[in-house]
């Protein structure tokens, strides 16, 4: 019985990791860069939704849409200002820039919203059957899981079966060749950032519904965990991010419950190391031979 409680809390947490990881993996897959500011876009998404619900009194669904719009714009602006000028620079330069953007967003949020925690009211709450609630399966957790699956299916379909998705895959394989084929690489990458940031907004709202304290550093730790999840599942692979996120959440919860709350994070990363030793590209990652 208690085992299922732990399992459910692992799945709930894992679904949130999965949604964040989807954003990481999308951007990495297409732009071949690690957007470490992703976690902070999540935080901004949470704040926008909070402000819209608390100060403007808008209904939850409108607030979520508003926060998606703001994050999308933010993502595109960040990409245009910080990453686009570095398109030809080494990947290390972009990585450092991403870390810089991450700190910028955290400090800007601190200036705007202050450091005292804001308490987020869950955007969804419907009564759960007594037994399930006692086992730790909250309405937020159910909504998170469903959202996560829906997002994954929509994204996979989008990437595999639409023209824009095809352009994305082309950019991912070979930017130069894609450009020669008449694909606007810059616009495709901007589009990727837009989608990734919109996902970040959803992740932010769900994360804050699950753990209610909202502070400027809210996004950073889940961001790192989700990055781990994306690597775990095979970075660049959409189903991989989903599976990686879920597994990470479950391993974390079970390790906390049955081994030690102290060692939980160490165990999570030990599992990651073992997986990477056996499958260097992650669970579902594709092995791409390096052409010399």
């Amino acid at each position, binding site marked *: 019985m208690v085992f299922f409680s732990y399992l459910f809390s692992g799945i709930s*947490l894992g679904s949130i990791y999965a949604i964040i990881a989807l954003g990481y993996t999308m951007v990495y897959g297409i732009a071949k860069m690690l957007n470490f500011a992703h976690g902070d876009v999540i935080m901004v998404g949470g704040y926008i939704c909070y402000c819209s619900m*608390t100060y403007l009194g808008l209904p939850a669904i409108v607030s979520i849409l508003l926060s998606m719009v703001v994050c999308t714009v933010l993502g595109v602006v960040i990409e245009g200002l910080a990453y686009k000028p570095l398109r030809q620079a080494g990947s290390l330069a972009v990585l450092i820039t991403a870390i810089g953007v991450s700190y910028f967003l955290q400090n800007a949020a601190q200036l705007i919203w202050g450091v005292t925690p*804001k308490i987020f009211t869950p955007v969804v709450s419907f009564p759960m059957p007594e037994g399930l609630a006692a086992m730790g399966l909250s309405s937020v957790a159910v909504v998170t899981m469903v959202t996560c699956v829906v997002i994954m299916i929509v994204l996979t379909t989008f990437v595999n079966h639409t023209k824009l998705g095809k352009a994305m895959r082309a950019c991912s394989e070979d930017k130069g060749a894609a450009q020669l084929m008449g694909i606007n690489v810059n616009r495709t990458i901007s589009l990727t950032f837009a989608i990734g940031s919109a996902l970040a907004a959803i992740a932010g709202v769900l994360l804050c519904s699950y753990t209610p304290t909202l502070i400027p550093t809210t996004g950073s730790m889940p961001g790192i965990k989700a990055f781990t999840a994306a690597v775990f599942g095979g970075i660049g692979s959409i189903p991989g991010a989903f599976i990686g996120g879920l597994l990470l959440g479950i391993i974390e919860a079970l390790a906390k419950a049955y081994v030690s709350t102290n060692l939980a994070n160490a165990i999570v990363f030990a599992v990651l190391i073992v997986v990477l030793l056996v499958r260097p590209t992650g669970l579902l990652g594709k092995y791409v031979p390096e052409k010399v």
Partner: protein
Amino acid sequence: MKKFLALLLALTMALALVACGGNSGNSGSTGNAGNNSASDNGGSTDNGGAANNGASTNNSGSTDNSGDTTATAGGTFKLGGIGPMTGENAQYGLAAMTGAQIAVDEINALGGDIQFEFQAEDDQAVADNAVNAYNTLKDNGMQILVGAVTTGSCIAVASEANTDRIFALTPSASSTDVTAGKDNMFQMCFTDPNQGIAGASYIQENFDGKKVAVIYKNDDAYSTGIYEAFKGEMGDAIVYEGTFTSDTQTDFSVQVTAAKDAGAEVVYLPMYYQPATVILTYAKSIGYAPTFIGVDGMDGILDQEGFDASLAEGVLVMSPFSASATDDLTVSFVTEYENRLGQLPNQFAADGYDCVYAIYNAIQAAGITSDMSNEEICDALIGVFTSGSFSYTGLTGSGMTWGTNGEVTKLPMAFIIQDGIYVKP
């Protein structure tokens, strides 16, 4: 030639400035100023005395102090404050420094012989920054330190202040490491172990025979310090111990489920209020309602924007201060604090306020004048604080006394949160 002229001009100006400063102090200080103005920079008039304590000034006779000196206390004292005013822990530093500033303003408004000049510096709760802040304050002539607010910073600053012989009273750094081996370092708040012991004896008195769970933050000296003393007292009554770190303080589903599974009826939470909020939220969502007992770090939980007060209903907080108390002192302090910051003061604010008044009373008791050297002031204040006859009554307790180890002795008070306010059980 030009260079020489410039140097001469600068020297003249420095002398002039020092002389001006000397006037507000008193006898003997002009002599000091003349001696060290060449090596010292012009602005720091009060350091003049410190650098020069070998010279026999009028006051050198009164270093032995012990409360029975006849000299009348007076002058403008430079108080320094260190605390996080930006960053993750900004609310603690802002509260403590605002509390201290209110006390300073009140004392200055009295127009008595003792006046304070208060300068607060930000350390973002980082030890390195705290040392920098300390050096800035020292350069500006700080004579007495109110700080640092957080434990890690305070440990770093305390050893500096100990070397420099500057008296320091921290509003809220509660670890025993803060005062250990430093005779000039005193605390206004409980030490962590004392708080843990007080929590344990409260539970043994009021919840005798109940199963107890404890969740603590094991990468944090404050939380661990309370936990260890608590565990030492409670022993086998603890049925579950959960831990977390700053990296894992957003999800407590496992710990809360395990506490519930172990059948705990009392859950002790030695931590700050942000993680406690997450724990209360999760416990409510799975329908688990034990008696939660928080420590002084829990104070502030109700001030969070958007916080659903029903989550904290029935939570016991063992804190020395409550903004809802109705005595005159608290009421006037709360009103003034609200005017300044637009929110209710927490315990840190009250601690900051008490620090300044305790120093003020001790200065009077010791008959210290502001032209004494830092070392003389420090020794005199240590003498008063540890004399045994010195006690202070303020916002965070009555009849507080200090031991030679710098720890304060006062009674903790337990409050129950009901309908969003603290009430006495």
